[in-house]
């Protein structure tokens, strides 16, 4: 009789532990999802800012058509990759970031543009959006790391394996080296 009670007790403890581990995994997975949604919001915000920026800059930078087109093209490509995985998307967003940085670097050479209130406001928004992207990416990757650790470490790995928790994918934005602005005074 006593043996039965002990067995039941052990079983109950095991079940409670299982539930706790499972709930912990679900919580971490939701955190990863939320963090990803945050990145998404910021990336969309950047898509929305770009047409405005190009419109403002166009009048001043008549000789920088290539730079402007690069930005517009990179935006179009990045927008097409919205539903792709973290890796493919990171690459497209990285190109957009590089194109934008080139544009802002070139803008330094146009004093009239830098005095434009509209441009200054846009520049602040763009700088901040870039920061928000990298901070939300930072938080997302931290969440993924925590979640992955939990799915791979014993004993929670057993629960994760049984109930089908897959490891999360890190989000890396591959940014090309910032090029020095080429200024010609001809």
């Amino acid at each position, binding site marked *: 009789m006593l043996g039965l009670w002990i067995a039941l007790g052990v079983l109950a403890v095991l079940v409670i532990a299982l539930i706790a581990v499972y709930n912990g995994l679900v919580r971490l997975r939701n*955190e990863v999802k939320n*963090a990803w949604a*945050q990145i998404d919001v*910021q990336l969309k915000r950047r898509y929305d800012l770009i047409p405005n920026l190009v419109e403002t800059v166009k009048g001043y930078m008549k000789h920088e058509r290539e730079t402007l087109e690069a930005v517009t093209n990179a935006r179009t490509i990045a927008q097409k990759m919205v539903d792709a995985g973290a890796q493919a998307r990171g690459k497209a967003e990285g190109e957009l970031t590089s194109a934008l940085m080139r544009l802002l670097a070139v803008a330094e050479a146009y004093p009239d543009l830098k005095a434009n209130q509209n441009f200054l*406001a846009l520049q*602040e*928004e763009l*700088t*901040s959006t870039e*920061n*928000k992207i990298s*901070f*939300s990416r*930072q*938080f997302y990757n*931290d*969440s993924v*790391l*925590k979640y992955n650790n939990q799915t791979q470490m014993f004993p929670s790995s057993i629960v994760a394996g049984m109930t089908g928790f897959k490891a999360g994918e890190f989000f890396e934005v591959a940014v090309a080296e910032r090029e020095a602005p080429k200024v010609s005074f001809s």
Partner: protein
Amino acid sequence: MGGMGVLLLLIGYFLGLYFLDSGTGGMIIALIVWAVMNLVAYFQGDSILLAVSKARRIGPDDHPRLYNVVEEMKIASGLEKMPDVYIVDDPAPNAFATGRDPSRASVAVTSGLLQRLNRDELQGVVAHEISHIKNRDVLLMAMSAVILGSIVMLAWYASRFMIFGGMTRTRRSSSSGGGSGQIIILAVAIVLMILAPILAQLMYFAISRKREYLADASGALYTRYPEGLASALEKIAASTAQLESANKATAPMYIVNPFHRKGLAASDLTGTHPPISARIRILRSMAGGASFADYDRAYQQVRSASKGIIGPAATAAVGVVPLREAAPETKEGTNEVKRARETSNALWQLNDYKTVNCSCGARFRIPPGFSEAEIKCPHCGSVVRV
């Protein structure tokens, strides 16, 4: 904080034993005092603090840089709700966070701070404040302050009672025969009355300092750039301006202790905050990375302590965290004139001043009481519509 609670109960117990012949009664009175003060602090604390500081709430358009930086740090810390952002019109550079839980929090920054700090530095300060919110320090410090206040209050009233009403009481109890027991209780009560407020104050300072270190470490972790916060602290420490709206109760909420002797810079000998020079040196010694473990290592090195300040549980959580580079704006050098204009623009706007642009290029401001539709430009003399 647990220690402070025990102290509160102890002083309640012995004072109760002395005055009411019942230790439990005294403890209950102590708890009631504590509970009432807690309720006030819990429900009104943030609005009282913001009102006392004369903080003005801003939106995204009033001061885009500040609002954006707060939002960036909200994202970096994983806070769920955007805190309200306030500006305090005060030349002394300082900042504080308030709000009892992360979903109803506010960050307030003085105009002096906005003028002095560049983006990276501002980010460091805001990250420090946001981590107070994220770590629920605001609530912790408010609760500790309430216990401290309760202890001070009890001790004060008890001492008045003892001086003015105690005579008759001692005579009666000694005639009833409980002499030596009464004297011991009286002695303990007096000792507690004198020591409890001091002890509680010291405990309160210790809690506050520990939370400041933790907030600095989190600030470095969120921004990945400890130098920003370090150089912000340096600028704040160098300032001699005294914050007008601060008082003792709100002091631990600020990024540096707002109290220093008139005309002197914020001193190293502050109770609620660790010495600024040490905080700066720790942040600057974080060579390897921005994680809690890196901060702990720097702390041990600078303070030559054998133990870190942030528990082992938190330091183990995050892996290698690389530092980032300074923002381009920081590299270009400071632009204080631009920042001063930006800040004063925000303040004009918050005070309902209207801005009028004349075609001659002049720009002037009209106070809120001005009711006419047109005004003559003081620069070129033409009539401009308001």
